[in-house]
């Protein structure tokens, strides 16, 4: 409960900090300190040292997995704030409000990592989404940002409608919004006699969750929104928010997938293949790196969906690792991207010459995203694939995934090619040494996790 309470409080604090503090950088500092506080609170909670307990009447359920996942998300936000804080300051005048909204998003993610019923799921998603609509439109004068915001909003609201219809149908079938009850009922009733109503509800739920994690064919908002949103917030959206969505997805279908019977795997494999296909193939032709990253985030989602597919312990560990790897690499790379004026591939030409540190760390991040061994991304993908193999059967989908992973190398390495093998003078914003250090640290973390993934996982079991 610590995280939910403190993130809400910090959000309010940030709102006021905007009034109290004159300098934008002071706001950022406040935010970073607040995040640190939030992180430590959450960690204290997860080790049961200090936790505020509120009787939630079974609506929220705090377990180690969720808390740890939440810590990862908060830590990712912290890294995000440290690396991109200066850019947030440049986005608009309401810096404090942006941070406040980020904290509210974190409140939403905290709910999503601990929800124990469809009501809290719904609330969590909404608390998470509504600030995001705003953040997407943060550049008010930028038509793209406006457009992205409106698109995101309309489609998000639409998917909320689907989600609610799903919830309603499930409620009709089970008479409860709890996750557990529906399973027990299903179990006692036996899979065969599962209500069609519930199945319809679950499918709608599935669809709206697919929408949230931008799985094809419900991914359409992703490229446009990621592209249109201010890059800083894209970075945040693509990592923290998406990871939280995945956690919710996983949590939601961990027990419910059985109800759908064999069609569950068919549906899921359909979605996975479609996601990998759309994400990877479409990314190939992109001219803008930012948009390419948007598509690549779709393809990464395809990989993360394997956790649902296999639905075992390994998948849980995997999704943790994936969240870490993906957040680190994406936040890192976006931090680099933001500094470059021109988001096209040509804009990166020759970056290695002018900004060796940025280029090198960029390579590390891209390799991690591509899943090259000894980067965190490898183990992330490894766990995903391994969990599917472990669950037995359906090796074909692993092979398909692997082939698409090879396609992904194409567009990730295209960036490397631009940076290292092509001549050019990229326009880069002023880089502070701290920023470089930060990048190097993140890159080091990527490699460290890549060499010893158990670092992350041992914390989990600790």
């Amino acid at each position, binding site marked *: 409960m610590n995280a939910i309470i403190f993130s809400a409080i910090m959000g309010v604090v940030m709102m006021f900090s905007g009034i109290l503090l004159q300098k934008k950088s002071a706001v950022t500092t406040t935010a970073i300190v607040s995040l640190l506080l939030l992180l430590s609170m959450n960690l204290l909670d997860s080790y049961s040292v200090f936790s505020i307990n509120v009787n939630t009447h079974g609506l929220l359920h705090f377990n180690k997995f969720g808390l740890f996942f939440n810590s990862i998300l908060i830590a990712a936000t912290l890294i995000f704030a440290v690396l991109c804080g200066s850019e947030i300051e440049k986005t*608009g005048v309401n810096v404090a409000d942006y941070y406040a909204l980020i904290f509210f998003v974190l409140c939403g993610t905290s709910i999503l990592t601990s929800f124990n019923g469809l009501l809290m799921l719904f609330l969590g998603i909404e608390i998470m989404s509504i600030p995001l609509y*705003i953040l997407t439109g943060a550049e008010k004068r930028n038509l793209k940002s406006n457009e992205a915001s409106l698109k995101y909003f309309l489609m998000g609201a639409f998917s909320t409608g689907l989600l609610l219809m799903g919830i309603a149908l499930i409620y009709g079938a089970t008479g409860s919004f709890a996750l557990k009850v529906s399973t027990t009922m299903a179990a006692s009733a036996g899979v065969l006699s599962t209500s069609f109503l519930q199945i319809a509800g679950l499918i709608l739920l599935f669809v709206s969750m697919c929408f949230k994690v931008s799985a094809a064919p419900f991914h359409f908002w992703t490229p446009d929104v990621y592209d249109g949103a201010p890059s800083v917030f894209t970075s945040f959206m693509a990592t923290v928010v998406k990871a939280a969505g995945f956690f919710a997805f996983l949590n939601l279908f961990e027990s419910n997938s059985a109800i759908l019977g064999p069609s569950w795997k068919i549906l899921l494999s359909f979605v996975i293949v479609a996601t990998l296909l759309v994400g990877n193939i479409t990314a190939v032709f992109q001219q803008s790196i930012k948009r390419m990253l948007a598509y690549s985030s779709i393809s990464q989602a395809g990989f993360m969906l394997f956790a649902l597919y296999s639905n075992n312990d390994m998948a849980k560990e995997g999704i943790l690792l994936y969240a870490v790897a993906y957040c680190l690499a994406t936040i890192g790379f976006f931090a680099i991207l933001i500094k470059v004026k021109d988001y096209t591939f040509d804009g990166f030409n020759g970056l290695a010459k002018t900004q060796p540190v940025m280029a090198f760390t960029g390579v590390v991040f891209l390799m991690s995203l591509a899943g090259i061994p000894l980067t965190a991304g490898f183990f992330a993908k490894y766990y995903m694939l391994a969990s599917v193999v472990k669950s037995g059967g359906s090796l074909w989908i692993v092979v398909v995934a692997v082939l698409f992973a090879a396609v992904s190398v194409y567009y990730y390495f295209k960036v490397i090619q631009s940076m290292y093998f092509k001549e050019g003078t990229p326009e880069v914003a002023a880089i502070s040494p701290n920023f470089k250090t930060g990048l190097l640290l993140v890159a080091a973390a990527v490699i460290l996790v890549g060499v010893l993934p158990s670092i992350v996982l041992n914390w989990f079991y600790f």
Partner: protein
Amino acid sequence: MSIIQILFSFLTVLALFGAIMVLVSKNPVHSVLWLITVFFAISGHYILLNAQFLAIVNLIVYAGAIMVLFLFVIMLMNLNAESEPRKHLWMKFAGVISGGCFLMVLVSLIRQTVELTGKTVLMKEGNIGLIKNLGKALFSDYVVPFELSSVLFLSAMVGAVVIGKKD
């Protein structure tokens, strides 16, 4: 045919008709008005179901506050019938077809749902929809989501300020 059935049928037809009119009205203001009609019809349904609290909230919040907000915005923008160019015909067609398909699929699913046969909705009676009971539940079992929805409003407020404020 009992009075409830008659009322039910009337409200249903009214709601559906209103909904369709929302769709087909060229003038946005008309759409809003038709939507308010729909909301009233739905509130009528709530009353039929003895969900008094929701009926009132629906009228006050939806029909009253939200739709007025809509109206204001539409007025503010000075939108009228001609301001919205027609959509491509095929897009309309596709929209209607796919919406219809969606409906058909779900309806056919419901028709096959065996355990719903014989289940009825308790009309008029039942006190769970009363404010007293709902309030009790809201402030005991559902206090956490209730409080959390304040975060939602807070963020919506911050958002509206951020978006709406002139730089």
